């Protein structure tokens, strides 16, 4: 009797346990989930890759996706502070609230740069617990992949070995590529970024951040700030990098004044990116950084 009951229960819950519904906040988080989760996960990406992830609004379609999610994979460290808490609140899905098993934050898995800066808005839209833009550091992404495999394993223990193997596979690909990226980038003079979002990659490659087009995070450039930046960097080698969603005028002005190149590089891989697409994104960044030789 009891055995029959358990058999029926198992039969009823088996299809539910089949595919995990994962909502990734950004395309890179979607890529990581896809790489680690394999065919066992359905992925919805909330932020379009060509939009500034700080600026989004909590849209009904996000709430729709979060309503049925088994797991949310967020970048975290308040990158999505403007919209993810609001969307989670409206989605009324207790499984994926922060602190529960169904909420995974990439930034919480790795040490962050710029952690512990004063929480002072005079310095702009700051993140006192650290810079959240971890996704452009392949090494940290490998560490995050391992942590994500553990989380997926806790949600779907029967596939734990597969998740761990895929995470190791991703980490292995990163290890295989890192030396080449380092060698290629060696000797680059560093970069001026629009926003402090490429710092993790610069840090990994051992390149200096020469400055930012924004005077403080989240505030558009002023003529005076750009003039100061140009004066400070005159005579140095470098390149100005920005994203297609950031206004090009500031970067181009600085680059022109310094005789450098201003290059638009995407911040995120495509929505349905594979690990290869992500590595191509890093290739693109490294190729742009090499322009500062």
């Amino acid at each position, binding site marked *: 009797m009891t055995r029959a009951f358990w058999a029926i229960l198992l039969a009823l819950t088996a299809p539910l346990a089949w595919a995990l519904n994962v909502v990734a906040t950004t395309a890179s988080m979607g890529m990581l989930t896809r790489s680690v989760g394999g065919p066992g996960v359905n992925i919805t990406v909330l932020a379009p890759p060509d939009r500034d992830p700080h600026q989004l*609004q909590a849209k009904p379609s996000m709430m729709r996706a979060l309503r049925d999610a088994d797991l949310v994979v967020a970048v975290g460290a308040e990158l999505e502070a403007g919209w993810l808490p609001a969307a989670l609140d409206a989605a*009324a899905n207790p499984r994926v609230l922060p602190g529960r098993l169904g909420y995974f*934050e990439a930034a919480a898995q790795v040490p962050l740069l710029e952690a512990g800066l004063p929480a002072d808005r005079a310095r*702009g839209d700051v993140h006192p617990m650290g810079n959240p833009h971890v996704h452009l550091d392949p090494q940290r992404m490998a560490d995050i992949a391992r942590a994500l495999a553990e989380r997926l394993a806790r949600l779907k223990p029967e596939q734990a070995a597969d998740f761990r193997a895929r995470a190791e596979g991703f980490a292995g690909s990163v290890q295989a590529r890192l030396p080449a990226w380092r060698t290629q980038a060696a000797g680059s003079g560093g970069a001026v970024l629009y926003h402090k979002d490429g710092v993790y990659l610069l840090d990994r490659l051992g390149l200096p951040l020469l400055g930012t087009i924004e005077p403080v995070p989240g505030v558009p450039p002023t003529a005076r700030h750009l003039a100061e930046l140009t004066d400070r960097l005159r005579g140095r080698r470098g390149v100005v990098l920005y994203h297609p969603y950031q206004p090009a005028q500031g970067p181009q002005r600085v680059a022109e004044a310094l005789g450098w190149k201003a290059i638009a590089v995407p911040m995120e891989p495509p929505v349905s990116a594979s690990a290869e697409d992500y590595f191509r994104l890093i290739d693109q960044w490294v190729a742009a950084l090499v322009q500062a030789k």
Partner: protein
Amino acid sequence: MHVKFKHLAGALALAGIITPSHANPEIDALRAEIAQMRQQYEARLAELEARLKDAEGRAAPAAQPTASDRLGALTSGAAFNPQISVILDGVYYRDNKKGKGPELYAHLDGINHSHGGHDHGHELERGFNLRPTELVFSATVDPWFDANLMLTVDSHGGVELEQAYFDTRSLPAGLKLRGGKFFSGIGYLNDKHPHQWDFVDQNLPYRTLLGEHGLMDTGLQLTWRPKTGSLYTLLGVEALQGNEQLFATAGLATPTSPRADGSPLAPTRAGELTGKKAGPRLWTAFAKFAPTLSDDHALQLGVWGGWANQHQEVHDHTLEDPGSLVHALEGKSRLWGLDAVYKFDAPGAYGAGDFSLNAEYLREVKDLSIAFHEIGSRVGQPRKFTQDGFYVQGVYGFAPRWQAGLRYDITGLTSKVDGPAGRLREWDDSNRWSLAVTHHFSEFSRLRLQASSARLAVDGNRERLNEFWIQYQLSLGAHGAHKF
């Protein structure tokens, strides 16, 4: 003198500062002992260091495969303190009626024409005004509840509790229960706070049919998000107390002598208002639907209704019009509305190219009968009050951090009272055009210029009112949510 020197020399020798020009066997023995100890000590240290290195070497690779994942979110909020945010809001105001604009709005013709006595205190002056400062506290209480508190403090220090509610966190099946005092979920703009508005002031249909704050009351709200594929569906019902709403007020006293003008009530008076019914006296239901469109577009359509099972009004206009008669009405009222929002999210930076359009229609019917009248024979006669209105507003980000908004709002398309023998009264509508330009310095501060031109119906006259505003809004503390 001599003795002193001898002692000093001995002390220095003991301390080993003076070099041993004259050998002393005792000192040599001590020195040998120290050297031996040092040797032993260094050997032991080297051994310990080697063991440490060894242990580290073994520990490092072992740490790798046992990667663990951390739960929770990184946040700048102090662990147990509520998130606090403060909104400062100030305006510079001018109009073409020597500052009488706000008074005109308070006395607009229509079914909720101000009956004197309960005007809100937010009087605007010509020139500088500090609008109520908003204080919001929110936190997760425990695994089962979130709580939120919002106070406003006006420029005279008057404190008003606008919201104090809890939300459940753990109900299954897309359910959520809210309880306390809160802005109702009806319509699109109703639960938006003034700092989330795209214009300085409340639109006309909301102001005249729901009240300056919109519908805000004490009670319970249950919302449900059913599984409807790619369509977002939100269904909600609210059981509210029905206190001091324009269309839901109970517990009024039957008029007694003297009247507002000081004279006694006519001896022919009859009838009385019934006592306050037990709450909830006001029910609402709302539904919102949003299809999943491409990333750039978002659309939400809504429909809602509200029903008050007890509403009372006392009319004593004898101060302005001594010929009028004091009477009181009682009955039920109902409201309904439609709302639509479309938003386009352009790839431009800082909101450049973003566009939003939203419109709402509201209709209110008060189905009352005379419960008290100075001419007693009229008691029991029905009076049906009907009024409606709509607004349409569009906002466009014409440059990074710059927005321009245009709004047309009108109330009283229908604005009438019907008695048993047909139409008793009709009023003109009031309508307005507003243009607002907003500059967002950052996410946390903005400056807005707004000009409005209104044609208002006040006491049967047409008043043309032109208004001009400069507004700043600053938000301190917790990062605000970018609500849809």
